[in-house]
């Protein structure tokens, strides 16, 4: 890796409109934490002649997590900001766990969540977790504001659906259903040789019906397999209106595997990856279901009792 970055122009606009204007005039790239951009510049994978830092823009450091209002994360918010938040941990557990497991842990103090989502790097963890939570990216560009669901945000490796000069201002996860839980897990193996398997990550979000007997809603996402995380609706449909059981989760994981295509021609690598993915998916769904089933919210319970007595 090259030691020195090539020179570039650098701007620090104070408002979103200034940033967009600067981007249009100078064809600059937006910079938040720089954890993906700076190493890419060093490796000469990118040759940006102008960087526009968004770190002085007011309003992009907004962070708000609430079980009834959802999770809002501004483009400047560092990943580690979420960790001490009790609601982020309880109701948006998948994203919280993905941040907890970021490697190296220092990245959480430097990189922004929105930057991580916008990087469109296939093996990143936050996109998988955020997709399970039905996240969307809010943007502002030359033609006004847009909301892009994360599912349609990734076009290819390092390519997202943002238009030229468009700035992702914040990410939003809608409030989870009342009796729901989510989970993120990954199997991490550093790649030492060409034939070594990469990591695999998975996230799931499960909601139960009012009696907490049957699964009402499921969202299953597997990442680090193709260029973007994928949702598996066949497996989700299988889980709906079913009583949760270990066998059901195993069957759902098997259905996901049927849709997966090998990504190398090395047979043993694929065998290992498929075996890992099956266990990972099964455990992720089981953990999310367990959280949904055992969820207790004294405030919600109290409000329900008051409503019933009325």
């Amino acid at each position: 890796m090259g030691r020195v970055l090539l020179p570039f122009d650098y701007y620090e606009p104070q408002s979103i409109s200034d940033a967009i204007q600067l981007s249009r005039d100078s064809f600059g790239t937006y910079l938040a934490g720089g954890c993906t951009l700076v190493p890419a510049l060093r490796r000469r994978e990118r040759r940006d002649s102008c960087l526009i830092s968004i770190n002085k823009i007011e309003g992009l450091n907004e962070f708000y997590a609430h079980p009834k209002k959802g999770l809002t994360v501004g483009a400047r918010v560092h990943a580690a900001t979420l960790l001490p938040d009790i609601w982020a941990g309880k109701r948006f557990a998948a994203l919280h766990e993905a941040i907890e497991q970021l490697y190296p842990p220092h990245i959480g103090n430097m990189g922004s969540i929105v930057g991580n989502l916008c990087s469109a790097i296939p093996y990143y963890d936050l996109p998988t977790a955020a997709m399970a939570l039905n996240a969307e990216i809010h943007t502002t560009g030359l033609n006004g504001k847009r909301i892009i669901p994360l599912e349609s945000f990734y076009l290819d490796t390092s390519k997202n659906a943002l238009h030229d000069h468009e700035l992702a201002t914040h990410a939003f996860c809608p409030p989870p259903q009342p009796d729901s839980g989510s989970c993120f897990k990954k199997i991490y193996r550093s790649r030492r040789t060409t034939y070594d398997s990469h990591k695999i990550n998975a996230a799931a979000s499960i909601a139960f019906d009012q009696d907490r007997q049957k699964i009402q809603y499921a969202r299953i996402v597997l990442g680090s397999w193709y260029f973007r995380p994928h949702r598996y609706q066949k497996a989700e449909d299988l889980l709906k209106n079913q009583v949760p059981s270990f066998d059901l989760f195993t069957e759902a994981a098997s259905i996901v595997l049927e849709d997966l295509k090998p990504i190398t021609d090395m047979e043993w690598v694929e065998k290992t990856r498929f075996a890992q993915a099956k266990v990972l998916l099964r455990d992720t769904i089981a953990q999310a279901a367990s959280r949904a089933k055992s969820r207790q919210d004294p405030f919600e319970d109290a409000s329900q009792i008051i409503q019933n007595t009325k």
Partner: protein
Amino acid sequence: MKTIATFHVNGQEYDTVIEPHMVLADILRDNLNLTGTKRACSGGNCGACTVLVNGRPTCSCITLGMLARDKDIETVEGLASTKNGLSTLQTAFVQNNAAQCGFCTSGMLMTAEALLRENPQPTRQEVKIAISGNICRCTGYIKIVDAIMEAVSTLQTINNHNEKA
């Protein structure tokens, strides 16, 4: 486009001329002559360049200098003081022979320092998780964890003593 930037490092203010493409590790080493911070992988993977920015461990090799201006930066040089000599953590590293080649030591110390400020009584497992982003190519992890645990108990003894006094 050269600019004069102010850096707050180890409680002192430094004015220095930087360019936008300079990273914090280069500024600390080349401009401010604080060579305790090491450059190793230059990609944010090994943790040898760890410094504390606003009290949080940060890889200075991928942090642009422009982003670190006007923030509180602490490097390994700031751990020891002229009055008390080496810090408790540094002394524990020396006593446990927790450095082999020593290249990762400054990063390890800064990460451990941040951990002990946030959690003064970490378990061995918590220490391992905290330093998981710092790679020791000599693989001397056991002694490093031992040293941090010894520092924990020493600091606890000092605190108990101070409370009694």
